[in-house]
């Protein structure tokens, strides 16, 4: 092995490929596929022989390289209009350029004046007398903190019931809340009204499910006048 490669310095298969291109001083728009593919495969072999964990993505790119290399050996095909087919490397080149641009952007970020590395802000807590600060707006929490909080609680009791919350369930909850809202604003609402308001097929299904769930939870009651009469929905317990 003649390459001076430090192990795990690569951030991924594209990073490795960029390295090989730079090392060989190759024009990125005109990559000699045979050379690059060979070196890439050599590197992967070396990683394997050292029993190093190789992310699956490295192997995916390896097969892409081999595929492009074999297409390069064929004479360029022409499509029906007689135009030459696009360079088989085009997509790969585009991807490499894009990745290279972001890699550069990353190093520019790192080169900035970074807080808590190059500059520091006021380190101590509030320079004001301590007061009860229970008032005020709630702003500085993100959705990630919320779900993290939920995760903290349930990790101690990892039960399927918690994991099973999905977006369908949340859409259902949303609709249940809406129905309860309508009922707290007025005494009753008709089934037809709720359905008419639902419009989309998806909404209609969720409305139906919401009503069933609310009845099951004894939160609402439904009454029907006669067999085909109007169905009216009331709160089980008036607010």
């Amino acid at each position: 092995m003649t390459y001076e490669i430090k192990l795990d310095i690569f951030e991924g298969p594209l990073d490795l490929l960029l390295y090989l291109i730079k090392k060989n001083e190759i024009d990125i728009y005109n990559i000699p596929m045979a050379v690059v593919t060979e070196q890439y495969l050599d590197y992967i072999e070396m990683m394997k022989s050292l029993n190093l964990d190789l992310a699956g993505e490295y192997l995916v790119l390896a097969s892409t390289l081999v595929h492009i290399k074999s297409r390069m050996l064929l004479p360029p095909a022409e499509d029906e209009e007689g135009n030459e087919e696009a360079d088989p490397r085009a997509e790969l080149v585009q991807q490499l350029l894009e990745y290279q641009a972001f890699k550069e952007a990353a190093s520019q970020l790192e080169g900035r004046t970074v807080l808590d590395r190059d500059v520091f802000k006021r380190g101590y807590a509030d320079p004001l007398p301590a007061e009860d600060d229970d008032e005020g707006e709630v702003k500085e929490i993100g959705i990630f903190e919320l779900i993290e909080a939920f995760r903290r609680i349930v990790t101690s009791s990892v039960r399927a019931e918690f994991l099973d919350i999905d977006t369908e369930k949340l859409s259902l909850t949303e609709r249940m809340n809406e129905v309860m809202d309508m009922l707290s604003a007025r005494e009753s609402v008709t089934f037809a009204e709720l359905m008419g308001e639902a419009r989309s097929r998806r909404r209609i299904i969720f409305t139906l499910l919401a009503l069933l769930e609310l009845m099951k939870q004894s939160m609402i009651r439904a009454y029907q006048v006669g067999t085909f009469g109007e169905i009216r929905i009331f709160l089980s317990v008036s607010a």
Partner: protein
Amino acid sequence: MMEELKAVIEALVLASDAPLSADKIGELIPDADRKELKRLAGELADEYEQRGGGIVFREVAGGYQFRTRDELAPWLRKLKGIKAALLTPAALETLAIVAYRQPVLKAEIDRIRGVDVSGPLKKLLDKKLVRIVGRKDVPGKPIIYGTTKKFLEVFDLKDLSELPTLRELKELQE
């Protein structure tokens, strides 16, 4: 341009977690004479005092610290007033349970958190993040809780189905 050593002291005092003592500054700048450090800190204090600006460099609790000028306290209390209050961990956990398990009874939240949630729940109702959705028709007619429109606003969500799920979080961690 300020003398280098004095600038270093000034920066250290701003960034320090607690009032920074002359001893501690001496440890960080071992080549400097302890007396000289004290003299420079004193100069900083005088300069800020004479400048008559909004902040002062003061010796407090055995160290130096930047403070706001005492006379400006009314303005600063106002700042505290609008400062976005962070939810306590207890309130945040309670809110998370309401968000993900709603419509939910208090008894259920108590059960999940393993403690009585009356306090945090009250706070969430006050802040209008949680509301009473209705009552359940079972003995005792327990109150059912859910989240509010304001909850969606605060967390920048279009509707509840935009809440990320635990499954997604789990996938991210693997």
